[in-house]
């Protein structure tokens, strides 16, 4: 048995036929080949699969693909501008060494994007609270907090200094 779903992913209309048990993260990774969204656990603890749905951070392993029918989903692959310039959060993580192995990074950036949409000038404590659902095992969070603080500052200044990457 399959269900047909239609949704917007990173600004593009996408459709698919999915088993009812298929998680959104599986649909993104395997059907749409958006492998930037990662799976780090099986109990919705780690947050590596975090995407935004209508701007709100959601762990895509806690949501069935059929539940995302009609939704507006953004993944890490949708964070760069159309011209390829990096989002301030991507710049911040790069500049402040907010990542090591990079596995938690996409989810961390998506969770932080939700925070900065709600709070443009968060304190360290607010940043740490906002990313509590995302586990990083490499950085001890120190530089992730600095990266998000930096991105918030950049976004407040409205002065993005884009760097084009062709990774």
């Amino acid at each position: 048995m399959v269900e047909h779903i239609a949704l917007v992913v990173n600004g593009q209309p996408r459709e698919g036929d999915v088993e009812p048990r298929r998680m959104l993260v599986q649909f993104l990774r395997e059907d749409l080949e958006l492998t930037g969204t990662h799976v780090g656990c099986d109990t919705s603890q780690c947050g590596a699969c975090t995407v935004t749905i209508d701007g709100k951070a959601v762990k895509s392993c806690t949501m069935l693909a059929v539940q995302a029918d009609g939704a507006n989903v953004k993944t890490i692959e949708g964070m760069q501008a159309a011209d390829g310039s990096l989002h301030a959060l991507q710049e911040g993580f790069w500049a402040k060494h907010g990542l090591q192995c990079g596995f938690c990074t996409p989810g961390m950036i998506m969770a932080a994007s939700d925070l900065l949409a709600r709070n443009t000038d968060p304190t360290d404590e607010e940043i740490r609270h906002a990313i509590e659902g995302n586990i990083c095992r490499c950085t001890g969070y120190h530089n992730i907090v600095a990266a998000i603080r930096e991105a918030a500052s950049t976004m407040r200044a409205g002065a993005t200094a884009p760097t084009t990457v062709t990774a």
Partner: protein
Amino acid sequence: MATGVQDVLGSPVKRVEDPRFITGKGRYLDDIKLTGMVHLAILRSPYAHANIRSVDASKAKAMPGVLAVIVGADIPWNPLPMAWPAGGSTVKNNVSTPRILATDSVKWTGEGVAAVVAETPEQAIDALEAIDVDYEPLAAVVDAEKATQPGAVQLHDNAPNNVVFDWTVGDKAGTEKAIAEAEVVVRQRLVNHRLIPNPMEVRGDIGLYNPGTDEYTVWMSSQTPHIQRLLLAAFVTGIPEHKIRCISPDVGGAFGTKIFCYADMALVMWASKLVGGRPVKWVESRRESYGSTIHGRDHITYVEIAGKRDGEVTGVKVKTFANLGGRLSTIGPGVPTTLYGRVLSGCYKIPNVYAEVTGVYTNTTFVDAYRGAGRPEATYVIERAMDLFANEIGMDRAAVRRKNFIPPDAFPYDNPSGLGIAVNGEKIYVDSGNYEPALNKALIAAGYDDLAKLKAEAKTRGKLLGMGLSTYIEVCGVAPSKWIGAVGEGWGAAMWESSNIKVHLTGKVIVTMGTQPQGQGHETTYSQIIAHELGIPMDDIIVQHSDTQGTPFGYGSYGSRTASVGSTAAIKAADKIKDKARRYAAHMLEASPDDIEVIGAEYRVKGSPEKKKTLQEIAFALDLGFSLPGDMEPYLDETAYYDTPNCTWPFGTHIAIVEIDEETGETELTRYIAVDDVGKKINPMIVDGQLHGGIAQGIGQALWETAVYGDDGQLLSGSMMDYALPRASWLPNFELDETITPSPVNPLGVKGVGEAGAIASTAAVANAVNDALGPLGIRHTDMPFTAQTVWRAIQSAKGARA
């Protein structure tokens, strides 16, 4: 450096690997999709200890999408190798290692029993449920000390009393005499509890058999693809080494867990051949990982520390039960012996040290090297013991440490617990150190002199404040092959590293390395080094690794060895490049090679600076080979292998400050100060990041993380919902500082840094909590300091006083 190229060595340049990771274009194992790929799932034992009467796979074979069901008896290959026994000519190791799939019995929950290959992962998992295994459940034992007692459940016929080995190091008679004659002796039982390492990317493999060439390719999330090829070929499968290619894609963290040879690596090879050469992928789930990937630590230790009332420590005696799990992992026995027993005296000049270590089988997941591997356990023992000793004689903890430090003029220092093994007349020494400046810096930063005031102020808020010191030393950069070989610690594995540098016709440089990153930024740091050595921009260099085809054989990355051993190999290769370029420049410029000076990327005739060739011009001409002098070979392509003469010896002082709520027992880490001496730094930003991560993992052990088994061998902390990994809101920002004592054994003066944080921080936090609880009359409480543990300790102390 001249020629207008900015020298990036020692600079905090942004990482070259980051663009792919921050845009979601990293390529980890589970991101790889191959044409025709099928999926493997493993049925794992629900029992901690059982005999297998039979396995009936008939129903599973008929399930939708199922291509094959594999049971242990199908695979004639050897059990996994155990490559690092407890060393010494008189030490007997009673070895039992896992088979690819269990045949007769299972020894822990999670040991693999059968496997299914199916078109989709879901079909494979569904079919596991249709496999009928007839188990005969047996009683289990999970505690290493209890497992050695008479009457305990026995796991293996070849290991009476579940003992893997009894190993000793140091001078027993001298140490016992020192203890007998001491003014003060303090004894304590210390539990260094079991941890589950939890890299964010779980493990996985893809096996691909090529029926046309009879060759195998295995993608694996591994720290050591070259070693795995060797082990899979020579020890497990019997397939010739040149017919196996191992590739590690981007690795999402490892912390030691991905050093080892796991059954699944061989299983995907077997399965791919079984299904006619279709690629077979296996990726563990997180819950599965808790049983199928190694755990760390798990020591029960009895320590005796003896000394004088003036603070001088005269002897340390240790007895440790090291839990190694139900069967042995690749280097399980090496960790609590060489990497633990030989460094128990830490940074102190203690004349008499003796340790006995008993490795033990229990019905638990196998235990092997987790970040620090033996050295955090040793640091925990000696740093807790120093505090207990200081408290017993009523002397300041910092002063006791200061009094016993190996003094700066005593290096090279011959450690009495056995590091100074003579090798062909040479010895391995603690080659450098200067411990007081780091201690002093940390004490000032922490406000140590104001501790009484801080405690009094906290008390007014209902908080017990504690400050904990950890003056650690680390042996890392493993290292000299002669040492590993000489003390009989291994199967003959060397510990050198390799690098190949090719300067291509256009002047672009490809560096291939035998090491293997898991988040440490090797592509950046090696680029910085080679840019410095060759005088070229980092952008002209690409660093490749992780594929046994196309990279020189290397031993991989673990034991904080890449910066010291790998970098030196890269510098040696660059030296060869420069030497050949200089000789060819002489040919081009019609000068003597001795008259060519190398300034950055320019090769100039001394005294005639206008007569010069750039590295790019030299590479172009040499790679074309139209005009070659004498017997010079074309192309600029050099490989170097480097075996270091010694390990490196990072050290430092970490101080943790905690506040405990006296009513609830909740412990908050309020400040963390770390002054580390890791020698010179290739990229200080990356070094700090390594320290941060290690510190957080060590704090995690002290405060929250613990693997808990029920008496029946069930892993009660068997998911991320139950195993408490540190979260952002639980940790403070870290306050880092440094001293710099360059390592004398490598040209960069660098030491390892990957493990230092984890080695130091657990003891710092444990000492802080015990310091906070001291005024209640509590001498020692074991980790982890959850609210429940601390509350119970407080209640027990108050009850005792009431």
